[in-house]
């Protein structure tokens, strides 16, 4: 299975037409795939809170948005999640590269990994963790759930899900 293609197919099938990204090397393939699709307007952000602002505007303009980012961004976006996305009740699928989990080569990434689920739980954000490739089968239902309940929803995708870091 090509995970990048599967994720992008699910975004398109769920009417998501506006995607903002802040890159992570785990996400490089899916970002490339999104760039190739005419159905999606891809707008890279310089910071993830900026990206959430773009998504909020696109949603109010009648489009379905999504953000793709790294879990370190949870530290950047807590205020935006609370006072914009949640306060105004907006849907926002967050496809998150979960750095600092099993097979992580960079020790510093673990420092935010250990806080990631706790922060998401504190924010009462529905959270799904993709650890094995087959977990991607849930994405379609997660996207439907997100736009049903008008909430930010986190999909944490770890190194094992992406197939590790090769030789690193």
């Amino acid at each position: 299975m090509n995970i990048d293609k599967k994720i992008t197919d699910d975004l398109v099938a769920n009417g998501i037409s506006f995607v903002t990204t802040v890159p992570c090397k785990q996400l490089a393939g899916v970002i490339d795939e999104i760039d190739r699709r005419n159905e999606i307007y891809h707008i890279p952000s310089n910071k993830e809170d900026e990206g959430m602002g773009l998504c909020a505007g696109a949603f109010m303009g009648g489009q379905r948005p999504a953000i793709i980012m790294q879990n370190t961004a949870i530290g950047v976006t807590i205020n935006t999640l609370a006072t914009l996305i949640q306060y105004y009740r907006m849907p926002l699928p967050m496809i998150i590269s979960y750095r600092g989990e099993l097979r992580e080569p960079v020790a510093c990434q673990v420092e935010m990994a250990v806080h990631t689920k706790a922060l998401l739980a504190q924010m009462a954000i529905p959270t799904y963790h993709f650890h094995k490739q087959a977990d991607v089968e849930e994405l379609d239902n997660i996207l439907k759930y997100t736009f049903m309940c008008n909430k930010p929803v986190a999909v944490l995708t770890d190194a094992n899900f992406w197939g590790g870091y090769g030789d690193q």
Partner: protein
Amino acid sequence: MIRSEILREIAPILRDQLVVCNIGIPSQELHAIDDQPSNFYMLGTMGLASSIGLGLALAQPKPVIVIDGDGSVLTNLGTLPTIANNVANNYILMIIDNGSYGSTGDQPTYTGKKTSLAGMAREAGCENVVEVQDVDTGPALQAALDGGQMTVLVVKCDSGNAKMPVITMDPVVIRDRFMKAVEA
């Protein structure tokens, strides 16, 4: 002129447009001067007015006017390259630049010192950047609307706030009526 005097003067231009208004006293002033369903008031999240407005402008065809501030743009400077590289000709970013953080007690920002937001917007790649004095805001905003080109309009004015009530409207109501105005 201070911000509220400018808003009062341009209210007839804003009335028929989609407006995304910056957090704090700017939203309180606009709400008190001329509340409209087509106004999206930010109740929190400093810095993101320009981003929300850009997302909205890219998502639908109606003109979008963002009323932002120098302090808020400074807190989200990454917005300028994103705006420059994702051209939406229905987007006007109007920065009321009074050189101070108005909502928090008029502490000075760097735009009252060496920093030029118009210069930063130009260097970020924004092609249509206009800087005007407060008294010229109305004609400059109307020209931007008529021009049909993405515009960054920096309005230099005096520091100061009008005393207006806090917005007590529920955020979901603000969002819902705004989305109906977008669709109308």
